[in-house]
């Protein structure tokens, strides 16, 4: 399958980067075709500009070269893989900006001209995978609600056909985790994505 792997961590030496590399290597090892999008690495702009917001309501919502390239990759992906640290119970701003700017009408969904309702546009996506780390414990994340997970597995999932599967791999309490716990999680990520 063709996998679009999206990474959103500022440091190339982070544990999060290790998770991203592990997942990509394991996917390639299983014969999948992986395209890596390192948002910090390519200095992806997070802020939707006034021109882009104006274009959003027109027939040509994509008006920036970086967005056009990413939208093209989304259009041919069978799997969307997101690897990010959970901050404020959500995706980092750079990834939020990617959703805001790239997943526009015509790319991720269509706006019905008559009713102005949203129609799903990601019929080709067979699976959404999220891999993330939390500073907080699992119980605290539950109390606060996991906004990042809801964004990807509910809001984004509404745009893929009914019944397509999702995978969520999470390490809680990463700031206080031991070396062994982190190593175990890396192995879990490796094994899980290898049998996609």
């Amino acid at each position, binding site marked *: 399958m063709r996998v679009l792997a999206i990474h959103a961590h500022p440091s190339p030496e982070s544990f999060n980067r290790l998770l991203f590399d592990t997942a990509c290597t394991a996917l390639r090892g299983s014969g999948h075709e992986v395209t890596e999008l390192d948002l910090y690495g390519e200095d992806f702009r997070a802020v*939707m500009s006034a021109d882009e917001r*104006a274009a959003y309501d027109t027939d040509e919502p994509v008006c920036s070269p970086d967005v056009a390239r990413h939208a093209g990759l989304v259009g041919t992906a069978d799997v969307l893989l997101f690897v990010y640290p959970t901050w404020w119970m959500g995706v980092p701003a750079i990834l939020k900006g990617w959703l*805001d700017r790239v997943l526009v009408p015509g790319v991720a969904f269509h706006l019905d001209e008559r009713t102005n309702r949203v129609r799903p546009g990601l019929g080709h996506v067979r699976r959404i995978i999220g891999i993330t780390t939390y500073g907080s414990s699992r119980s605290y994340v539950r109390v606060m609600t996991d906004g990042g997970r809801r*964004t990807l597995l*509910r809001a984004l999932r*509404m745009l893929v056909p009914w019944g397509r599967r999702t995978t969520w791999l999470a390490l809680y309490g990463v700031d206080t985790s031991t070396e062994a716990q982190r190593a175990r999680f890396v192995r879990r990520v490796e094994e899980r994505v290898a049998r996609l």
Partner: protein
Amino acid sequence: MRALLVHAHPRAESYGAALRDAAARGLAAGGHEVDVLDLHVDGFEPRLSRAEWADHRTAGAARAADVQDHGARLQAASALVLVYPTWWGGPPAILKGWFERVWVEGVAYTLPPGAARVRPLLRNLRRLVVVTTHGSPKRINVVEGEPGKHLVGRQLRALCHPLARTRWLALYGMDTAAEAERRAFLARVERRLARPRL
């Protein structure tokens, strides 16, 4: 009250900007002091930098001048009014990044060595008001689980005064809303923010 009004819409002539102006008018009419922070006008950079990330536990040598300034304004306010369009269930990236870069250790909370939980520092904030628009109808947002609402009502709220109250003013179904509905919502926002205790 002394209100910090944070606005996050890219277009100067948008309905979002009209909401910002309605909120500011209401606050002024109610005798509140208003400090307007327009993130797009200021060219705010929402991406947490590598240096900031590396520095996030050492209370801030890497903090930029605008981030420090915003932090000081946040600490001087008794009410926070957020005006933004809801995209993908939550605030636009520019506002999400504002929380990530400005609401940091030493400004919004402390985490003393050995403590299991963060301790709130923004006890000056007694009101959190959100003015937002959702393109989709309420039922879609309920299925999505309203991440933006929980971010403000639970997480930001936990770092404010223990008795702080949250007010949620939302226009759902913006994409199909009639002109009259939009005007009515502007009037409602202005009226609500003119109240003495917001």
